[in-house]
């Protein structure tokens, strides 16, 4: 290995140090600062000014390099946005699939470049719409899907070989059915698997540590479901990203920027180890592992976070797994602007907030972005608020010219210094997870739950003490505010789904259904890949709830710790 080549020579550094110390002593009036200490949102102290002194150790080629090359800090593609800009991928989903299909088509017509489909709570958790537990949540938070017929309706008139689809199937249990229905529907439309492009979320932490509920699947089972889908896609659907490690949601639940990245990487490490154990070469599956990160309020820290995440992942893949394919070494990610940073008060202010969040994602080199609609702290977005969010992307892309050079903040003393500090903290936390026995053990022990809920509480206390100012919430409030926006009402869904389910259950061949469910149980017993049988099973119009029932019967349930 060659020795480090520092960016600045010792003589210059000495001179800058002397001058800097003098400046701090004689020129910079500390007592005139607005506050005693300045910190990033995750608590890293911020100094008045950053200079080459903060980057004394930096070796340009080793630490930053060039876009599309190791260590990928400056971007994962050689041309970045000078070639193709990020994908505008606006989240959409509500009510029955008939209604969401219209919203998809509306967004595509208005220039959205891909689908970002969100599912209702029962679908995410593996319930049929008609399940007694589901009655109040059908069609809420996303679109309701029960059988492959719903999937056909959802994508009716949308060319599956040309439009890429992100399926926001957060929990692996919902993902098994929903992803299988997507694939089975594609087969029915004669679109070969090799043409399918898209992403599933499929993150086991979403089932067991974030958004937890009693009687969920045990962490090991949920982890297996997730790895089954990754293995299946690696073998059969080569252009599909079978997992999108959902740091965004960890962040929404309370994580700091450091925890967000450390936990997604820990999750990706565990999945990689498992897939290698199953006999796959790292360079076969790693190019399709993808990440989902949050675009939060601390502008520079977020930019540094994306850059630090890329460098950390590169090192993990290279040093720990010996990956060689550049696509395995490059961390690709989608960003959603932080829902938790939106306010219900003065909701139009959220347009400005989300625009800043998205700008940081773009300056951080995101591959695709969703911008939150201004009314999301109040309701499911209306057509107008969705359109405004999409237009915010288009303004950012076409008018600001931030796309004209790659990694424009690379070399900023501040951003590079923050990138280094974040990487250090991420690596330290990764070591803690490792010491706990890896991410699956850390979840089983409740360690992750505790980390997240403590961070969420600290965040709330910072708002309540006034240390963190939120416009419209703890400053610049409007008393007795009249809502300036119209709220969305979810269309009737349960009855629509019930009627369809009743018809399908009457029309389908019960023998085939039973055969499919028996095959699923046998697959559990021999620890086979569940996706292999579910993709076939859903073609017989087996419902999502029926699949979940078999899996719960076999794998049992788990009560996560509550904090």
């Amino acid at each position, binding site marked *: 290995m060659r020795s480090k080549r520092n960016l600045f020579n010792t003589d210059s550094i000495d001179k800058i140090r002397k001058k800097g110390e003098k400046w701090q002593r004689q020129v910079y009036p500390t007592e005139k600062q607005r506050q005693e200490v300045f910190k990033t949102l995750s608590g890293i102290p911020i100094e008045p000014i950053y200079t080459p002194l903060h980057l004394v150790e930096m070796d340009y080629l080793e630490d930053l390099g060039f876009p599309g090359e190791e260590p990928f800090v400056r971007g994962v593609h050689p041309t970045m946005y000078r070639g193709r800009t990020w994908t505008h991928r606006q989240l959409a989903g509500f009510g029955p699939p008939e209604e969401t299909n219209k919203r998809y088509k509306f967004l595509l017509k208005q220039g959205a470049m891909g689908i970002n489909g969100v599912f209702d*709570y*029962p679908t*995410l*958790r593996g*319930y049929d719409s008609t399940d*007694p*537990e*589901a*009655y*109040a*949540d059908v069609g*809420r*938070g996303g679109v309701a899907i029960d059988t492959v017929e719903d999937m056909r309706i959802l994508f009716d008139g949308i060319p599956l070989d040309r439009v890429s689809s992100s399926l926001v199937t*957060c929990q692996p249990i919902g993902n098994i059915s929903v992803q299988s229905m997507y694939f089975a529907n594609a087969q029915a439309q004669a679109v070969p698997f090799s043409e399918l492009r898209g992403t599933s979320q499929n993150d086991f932490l*979403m089932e067991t540590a*974030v*958004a*937890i*509920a*009693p*009687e969920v699947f045990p962490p090991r089972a949920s982890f297996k479901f997730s790895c089954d889908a990754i293995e299946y896609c690696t073998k059969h659907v080569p252009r599909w990203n079978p997992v999108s490690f959902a740091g965004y949601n960890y962040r*929404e*639940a*309370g994580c700091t920027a450091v925890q967000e990245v450390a936990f997604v990487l820990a999750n990706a490490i565990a999945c990689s180890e498992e897939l290698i154990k199953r006999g796959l070469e790292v360079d076969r599956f790693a190019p399709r592992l993808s990440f989902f990160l949050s675009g939060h309020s601390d502008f520079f820290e977020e930019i540094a976070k994306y850059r630090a995440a890329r460098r950390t992942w590169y090192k993990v893949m290279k040093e720990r797994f010996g990956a060689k394919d550049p696509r395995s070494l490059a961390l690709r990610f989608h960003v959603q602007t932080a829902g*938790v940073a939106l*306010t*219900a*008060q003065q909701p139009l202010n959220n347009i400005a907030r989300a625009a800043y969040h998205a700008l940081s994602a773009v300056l951080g080199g995101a591959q695709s972005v969703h911008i939150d609609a201004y009314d999301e*702290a*109040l*309701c*499911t977005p209306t057509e107008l608020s969705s359109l405004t969010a999409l237009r915010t992307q288009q303004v950012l892309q076409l008018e600001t010219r931030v796309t004209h050079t790659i990694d424009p903040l690379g070399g900023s003393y501040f951003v590079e210094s923050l990138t280094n500090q974040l990487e250090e903290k991420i690596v330290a936390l990764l070591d803690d997870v490792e010491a706990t026995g890896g991410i699956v053990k850390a979840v089983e022990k409740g360690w992750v739950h505790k980390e997240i*809920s403590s961070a*969420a*509480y600290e965040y*709330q206390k910072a*708002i*309540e003490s006034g240390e963190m100012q*939120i416009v*419209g*919430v*703890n400053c610049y409030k409007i008393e007795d505010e009249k*809502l300036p926006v119209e*709220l969305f009402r*979810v269309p009737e869904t349960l009855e629509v789904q019930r009627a369809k389910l009743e018809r399908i259950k009457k029309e389908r061949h019960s023998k085939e259904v039973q055969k499919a469910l028996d095959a699923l149980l046998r697959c559990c017993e021999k620890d086979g890949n569940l996706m292999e049988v579910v993709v076939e099973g859903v073609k017989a119009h087996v419902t999502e709830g029926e699949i979940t029932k078999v899996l719960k019967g076999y794998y049992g349930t788990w*009560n*996560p710790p*509550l*904090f």
Partner: protein
Amino acid sequence: MMEMRKIRILLAKPGLDGHDRGIKVVARALRDAGMEVIYSGLHQTPEQIVNTALQEGVDGIGLSILSGAHNAIFSKIIALLHEKGLSDLLVFGGGTIPPKDQERLKSMGVGEIFTPGTDTREIVSYLKEELE
């Protein structure tokens, strides 16, 4: 001096939605304010919630709903409380609940609705005022 009995609150998150950041933060804030909090996690059916309230002898029930399912769930819980002769129990809630629905819920008997951005101290002082 007689020791004041602690206020006992059941916090619950009915339905299948997983947005539990708010309720967990509120649980900790109420505990820090000296109350006894029973929080049993997500996916509670209205029947389970009312049964727990009965068994635990709580002074109030707080429900967190961010999915938009508030109208259906609150009305079911209020009806069940009536059935069990617990109509005096304080029911309050929080979440993404539009102003019009807040009015409707209050006329149904819900004590107060706290929307996103609420200071947890506001919830603490409301409960102390209502229950002490």
